[in-house]
């Protein structure tokens, strides 16, 4: 028996339906406006070079936790993923749950920033942001939430400046960079990172995008666009799709020296696990992470496999370690409807319990 039995009338019906969606959807498409990025009102409270520290406007009806939360995003892609639209905003969820939210926006590095190192980012920009917030709130310690690579940065920071971090939340954060299912780690193994950085200076965002898309090339560069036809008749879904598409391809270049160390020490050397990691003058030992830690990871994460995040449990020095498992992917953890219901409230609850 043939595994495929498509009758002409069925095929015609399928194509008619496809064509109908395309025709009607195109009208919606033509009315689609330029997508805005970041939806929650915010105010810049500190700027240095291209880095900006924002404070988000909290709803007046909610009683705020007196200890603010600083969100540290990755250098890769833009932080508005955490605030991508009204009903899909992790930041909005955290504000609604009573947290006073700050965010570090690293900006778009250009040639003038190619010598910025991880020391500059972590012990420089990040530390000064923390100091600004501590000073504003007259506190010794604040809460820190790191996302993806920003989570790795937060871990390094918490390990070397534990006196300034009250509670640490890590989301989809790579810790063990050499788990067997880590495709990105496999790809960088034989790349001469020094040659790459010495040659290109800053690493182009397009190059990173190429890598991310090629984790699932047939799905991300083909199937996704056919799926889109199915939602063309729903203006709000077109808007969501365009926002996501904008975010995916909004990839800042990577400051050369920071990229060099991140690839060599984290991906190739796996020093966060193996030891021997130094950020500037500081030796990074995760045993010094003694504050409470809340580690959120996604079961279907193709960029940061769950095992890469779960490795944190055995490495940190704290006795107050909690994991939160989200059934979804690396992006879904910020934007899916279920994530909005699960992630911000659980993070806020965990922090409130420790305030």
């Amino acid at each position, binding site marked *: 028996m043939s595994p495929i039995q498509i009758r002409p009338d069925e095929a015609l019906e399928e194509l008619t339906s496809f*064509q109908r969606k395309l025709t009607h959807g*195109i009208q919606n498409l033509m009315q689609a406006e330029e997508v805005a990025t970041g939806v929650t009102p915010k105010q810049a409270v500190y700027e240095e070079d291209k880095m900006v520290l924002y404070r988000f406007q909290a709803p007046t009806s909610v009683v705020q936790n007196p200890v603010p939360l600083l969100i540290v995003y990755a250098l890769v892609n833009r932080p508005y993923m955490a605030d991508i639209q009204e009903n899909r905003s992790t930041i909005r969820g955290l504000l609604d749950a009573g947290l006073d939210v700050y965010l570090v926006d690293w900006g778009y590095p250009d040639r003038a920033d190619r010598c910025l190192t991880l020391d500059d980012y972590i012990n420089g920009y990040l530390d000064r942001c923390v100091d600004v917030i501590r000073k504003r709130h007259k506190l010794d310690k604040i809460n820190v939430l790191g996302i993806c690579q920003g989570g790795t940065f937060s871990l390094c920071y918490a390990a070397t400046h534990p006196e300034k971090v009250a509670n640490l939340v890590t989301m989809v954060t790579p810790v063990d960079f050499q788990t067997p299912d880590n495709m990105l780690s496999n790809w960088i193994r034989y790349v001469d990172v020094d040659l790459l950085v010495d040659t290109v200076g800053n690493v182009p965002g397009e190059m990173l995008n190429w890598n991310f898309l090629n984790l699932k090339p047939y799905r991300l560069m083909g199937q996704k666009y056919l799926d889109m036809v199915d939602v063309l008749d729903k203006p709000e879904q077109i808007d969501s799709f*365009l926002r996501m598409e904008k975010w995916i391809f909004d990839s800042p270049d990577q400051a050369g020296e920071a990229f060099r160390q991140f690839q060599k020490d984290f991906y190739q050397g796996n020093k966060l696990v193996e030891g021997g990691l130094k950020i500037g003058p500081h030796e990074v030992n995760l045993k010094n992470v003694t504050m409470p830690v809340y580690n959120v990871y996604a079961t279907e994460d193709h960029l940061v496999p769950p095992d890469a995040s779960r490795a944190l449990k055995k490495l940190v020095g704290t006795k107050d370690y909690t994991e939160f498992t989200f059934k979804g992917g690396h992006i879904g953890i910020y934007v899916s409807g279920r994530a909005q219901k699960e992630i911000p409230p659980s993070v806020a609850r965990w922090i409130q319990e420790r305030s």
Partner: protein
Amino acid sequence: MADSDSTADQWLEAQRRYWDAWTDMARRGIEATTPAPRAPANPWADALDQWWKAVAPSLPQSNQGPFDQMMNLGKSYFSMAEQFSGGGAGVPTNPTEIVEKWSRMMTDAFGQANQGLNPFAAMAGQGARPGKAFWDLPLDNWARTFSGGLPIPGDFLKAFDIPAFTGEGPEDMRARMDRFLATPAVGYARESQEQQQNFVRRLLEYEKAMGEYQAGFAELMAPSLEAFRRRLEATAKEHGPINSIRQIYDTWVDAFEEVYAEYANSDAYARRYGGLVNALMGVKREGARLVDEQLEAMNMPTRSEIGVLEHRLHDTRAAYRKLRFEAEGLREDLDAQADIQRETGDALEHLRAELDQLRAQVGSAKPESSGGSGKTGGGDAAQSKDEGEATGSTEASKSAAKPKPTRTRTASPSKGGTSGRKTQS
């Protein structure tokens, strides 16, 4: 909008006519024992293409990219449907035939969309490889991503497709390159000739690395198609025959992703990928050296000089920042010292005043102790006043003494912050 509506109407009309012809063809195909004649072209895809060209300019510029991609796939989807379910005759029935037809169809359908996007294909002799195009999606993307980053235009590499121009084979081209590279560099332009030879060597290394990288994908073809066949059979066995074009497409994507993921996570892929990136960087670096030579000859700043300046500027900024924080720390310490001194002075003043008052009080108390009850009322008044002042003095004294621990507390974070900054620098 009126134009786009009109074009859409034309498109819909074209489709209606095509459906009629197609249904008729399918009917005849079922009836006939010989394969049904195939329509020369797919008017759906063609009309869609024309329509898209008409409406696309009116779309917001920022939305063009994703929708171009979507329309390309949409056209391929129509072609795919037309070819795959074109009536009873000619439609394969056993899984192997299905997979073969699918393979041919995907190559035709997606190949056209990707033509011209891979400037390296000709270099590596990929032009004639069956299954180029959509199978090579990752590769095409690589070409698009990096051809713009090369020190020479992507088309330049295409010019290495010597057979297209001279009829020579790749081996002839390689031999010619080898002869060029084997020519010893002598004379006044010796250094320049060596640099150019180095550049060409890097290009050839890149060509080799690209060939190996592409060969890896070519090896995936057979296992991918086999996985596709397995999935089709498994789906049919579990849920009955597949009766949707989209379901076939999704099954195909799943199968290819599965095989690709296994390969992409292998050591073989890591080596080929690393080789490709390193070779590309080799080309770019040699290219940059050549450019630097030219810039230097024109007395213009070179890239390497700018690189040195960038590092020096970075180091200078770091040193400046360190000094600034140290200065700020010292200033804070001095301010704290000054506060302490001022407050200590104030406290001393208060104590002195209090002492003076006490002395005066003691002085005024002496006559009283020596008798004279007539001054009692005045004494009470004076005492009352003195008590008030004394109370005030005590409070002043307290307030002078009070800030000390507070001062210590406020100074601590400031000092802590300062030392933190010092350490970080």
